[in-house]
């Protein structure tokens, strides 16, 4: 809820400052920072999925890093849609709100999927990795 309100506030604020001005470049920089942060988190997710020794640790990397990096990049896209518009009209604002809705659904759906996978691993009795075990 709080994340939502922050995002909507950010988008509304971005709407008011689209046409030039000093804040426009600030918003552009914010887009770049969010995008690169998302890429960095995704890089760490990939490294985690490739290098961690067993399923549970890999699930940890994928569940957290994937959700966070997707959300960061989607917020960057929403701000980009607002700031790059030639003139702000209904379509542009609606697009930004839809991207925030996607963020919401990912925020619910992705951890649910992770939980379901964890349950599957638990039922099929995959043993957690201990130190000194060979990685599988």
């Amino acid at each position: 809820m709080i994340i939502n309100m922050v995002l909507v506030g950010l988008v509304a604020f971005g709407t008011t400052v689209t046409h030039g001005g000093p804040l426009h470049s600030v918003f552009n920089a914010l887009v770049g920072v969010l995008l690169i942060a998302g890429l960095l988190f995704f890089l760490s997710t990939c490294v985690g999925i490739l290098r961690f020794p067993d399923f549970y640790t890999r699930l940890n990397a994928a569940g957290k890093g994937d959700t966070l990096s997707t959300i960061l990049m989607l917020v960057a896209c929403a701000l980009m849609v607002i700031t790059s518009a030639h003139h702000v009209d209904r379509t542009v604002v609606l697009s930004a709100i839809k991207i925030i809705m996607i963020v919401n659904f990912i925020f619910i759906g992705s951890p649910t999927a992770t939980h379901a996978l964890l349950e599957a691993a638990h039922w099929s009795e995959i043993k957690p990795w201990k130190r000194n075990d060979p990685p599988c």
Partner: protein
Amino acid sequence: MLIAIEVGLLILVPCVAFVALWLRDLMSAVIVLGAYSFLMCLVWTGMGAVDVAFTEAAVGAGVSTVFFIAVLFNTTRNITFNPLDVSSKLVALVACLGFGYVLLQGVSDLPDWGDPYSPVNAGVSTYYIENAYADTHVPNLVTTVLADYRSVDTMLETTVVLIALLGIFMILKKDRPAQSDSSDTQAHDSLIIRLSARFIAPFIQLFGLYVVAHGHHSPGGGFQGGVILGTGLILMAMSMGMASAKRLLSIPRMIILAAVGVLIYAGWGAVPLVYNGYFLDYSVWESVFGSMARSHSMLIVEIGVALTVMCGMYGIYMSLVSDGGMQEGL
């Protein structure tokens, strides 16, 4: 600009397809086929085919993987592998390589990629692009061609979905339904899964309705909306148990609705015959709807398509997962 993304995707796609066919475990292969479908959707988006990509998104993310898993759930996922059986594989390999070689020879004769004046892009499609809005007042050209210019084609495609549904019912039909004590024998999920499925299912249904209704102005329409609506029902059947899904839409009612969808389509198209028009010629409705006659008629026709496709997907899932008994499933 997009070409760079396209090239990357086109290199990735055959690799994923090969992995899907190479894996010697059916469950893994099915899951990798899901990833293949994701990448294919991106390829088509990059080439500007948003409606096709939307259909693939709805089908690949929601339905086709679930169908495969539903069948494997009742059978086995082991593959009997015979390493001695080389000769027949060699024959098949030689035949396929010949097939591929002959087709690759023809590539150089094809028109350049992205040439707007190639034979495919000349002719009737230029008429569609330039005159569709003046004729029908619908900005989405794909919807216009789908539900107006080529609507007989679409009607028969919808009928194919209905026929496939009926065929699956007849193939898997049990002579005597399994004895069940009408209680839900299906094991329940954990609270987290049930709650989030319950939270998301209404949004899926709402989004499906939006896609059907808004298909005139953005990608979408009857097929995509129908698949999304059906996926919402499948999600309910999966997380809340089949009994509660059948309370929402019972099996006989579902078959009737699927037929009603085709009937709406054909009936709306047959009315002009009374007024000496052609079959599926919507312009006779101009006395009722004015200049928007063809636009509104397309909406009605799309609703018929969505009904049939929704019931088709739901019915196929229900019969596959329960072996036709409709009692217990995933």
